[in-house]
């Protein structure tokens, strides 16, 4: 337990420091949300109708971009080998790294979403709904991304491979997240179903993500 707690604290500290990239996710989120109205035009009614979708897309892309720092830096300086050889089960260590990643990348997105919703002319009910669905869904994005990050850890010229592998698996999360956000605004009774499925997807990914990522790390780093 102590080892896992130390790993969690180490990862959070590293992410928050200057080269860590924790708040880069929020910055990218802001930039995407700012760029979309340039492409769509300033029609406020249109923006408020698709606002939840834009916020969800921006959150997805921001999470994707932060995923490669999950294992790559540890692989470069050798600490990944120490984690593999350590006493804590690899699945738990990988899950702890995922939790640290979500705390430093996903949670700031959840906090920032209501603020950025103002750019997209969302009313209070809408951006509360988006923030709630992001809170339920961003852990799924991180933990599904764990799989892709582990598969591409040893590649130097990975490039866009990680998003290509991870995006098809995160499509259900996107679908139900946006469905829940739209339902909260338009038809509150229909909020429960997509939100429950979103929460279920998060819980499933909390199990499948670390298991697959640990297997990928073990087999990929012989």
């Amino acid at each position, binding site marked *: 337990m102590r080892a896992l707690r130390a790993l969690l604290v180490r990862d959070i500290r590293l992410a928050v420091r200057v080269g860590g990239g924790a708040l880069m996710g929020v910055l990218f989120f802001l930039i995407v949300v700012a760029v979309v109205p340039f492409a769509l035009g300033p029609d406020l009614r249109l923006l408020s109708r698709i606002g939840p979708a834009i916020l969800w897309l921006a959150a997805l892309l921001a999470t994707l971009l932060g995923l490669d720092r999950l294992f790559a830096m540890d692989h470069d300086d050798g600490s990944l080998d120490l984690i593999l050889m350590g006493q804590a089960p690899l699945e738990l260590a990988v899950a702890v790294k995922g939790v640290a990643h979500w705390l430093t990348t996903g949670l700031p997105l959840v906090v920032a979403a209501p603020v950025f919703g103002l750019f997209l002319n969302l009313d209070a009910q809408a951006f509360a709904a988006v923030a709630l669905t992001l809170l339920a869904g961003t852990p799924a994005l991180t933990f599904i991304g764990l799989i892709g990050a582990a*598969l591409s850890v040893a590649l130097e010229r990975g490039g866009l491979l990680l998003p290509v592998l991870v995006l098809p698996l995160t499509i259900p999360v996107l679908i139900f997240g946006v469905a829940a956000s739209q339902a909260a605004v338009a038809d509150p009774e229909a909020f429960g179903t997509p939100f429950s499925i979103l929460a279920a997807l998060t819980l499933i990914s909390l199990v499948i993500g670390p298991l697959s990522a640990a297997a*990928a790390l073990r087999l990929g780093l012989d």
Partner: protein
Amino acid sequence: MHAAAAAVKTSGQNRSQTASLDRGVRRAPRPRKAAGAAPRTYMAMPLIAYANPSRFLALTERVLPWLVGATAIAFGIGLYQAFWVAPEDYQQGETVRIMFIHVPAAWLGMVCWTIMSVSALGTLVWRHPLADVALKTAAPLGAAFTFVCLVTGSLWGRPMWGTYWVWDARLTSVLVLFLMYLGLIALWRTMEDPTRAGRAAAILTLVGAVNLPIIKFSVEWWNTLHQKASVLRLGGPSIDPAILVPLLIMAMAFTLLFVTLHAAAMRNEILRRRVRTLRLRQAQAAQGA
């Protein structure tokens, strides 16, 4: 290094087995059981017998011409049945004949991922040497079948539904399957060492297998524009036999096509890896000199 060691081992086995190959391929000799070891299942024996790549190459060399002939005959019969003999649909008219290509391609796209999942288990669990070869070569075939399914479906949808594409659950999940095929092929091309790439691809294949029940039951779980299941359903097929029989013949033809192409591709991949090993050895020898 890994591939080089494997190649050396198989050439050692070759010497003792070329004699049996001359007399035709025989059953693999029973492995000596350790005291108290569980008996091997019957199914594992024939597959294990073909773990030797040379044996597998010999098998495909004998079997491939027959497979090609069988595929050609099946396609001949199937296409004739589909385009001349089968009656037109009471509602859709002649355009229903696209179904004879669209449905078998869809079935094969999903069956291919299932076969890939079994191969992935073969790589990770049973460490069968040819499992990752089977996995690697099946991916482009599955992607091609899924692509044919999407394109023919789109062309069929235009006269029937009035649109080339709609984002309902069935079409979206098949598109996601296609994207996952492409992602898998991308993963193979990015990793240099075939053995390590095989293990990574095996994990990705097993994770992506969760999409298969979603595709199959998408028309039941969601309100889709795509029609519900007509063949593989509780209560038996709901298609008239005059159309069902050509459909099943075409499905058999597509399956034979897949088996033929897969066997040929596995031959190529084994030979490709041998060439790579020889090149590595050559480079090492040049270095040492």
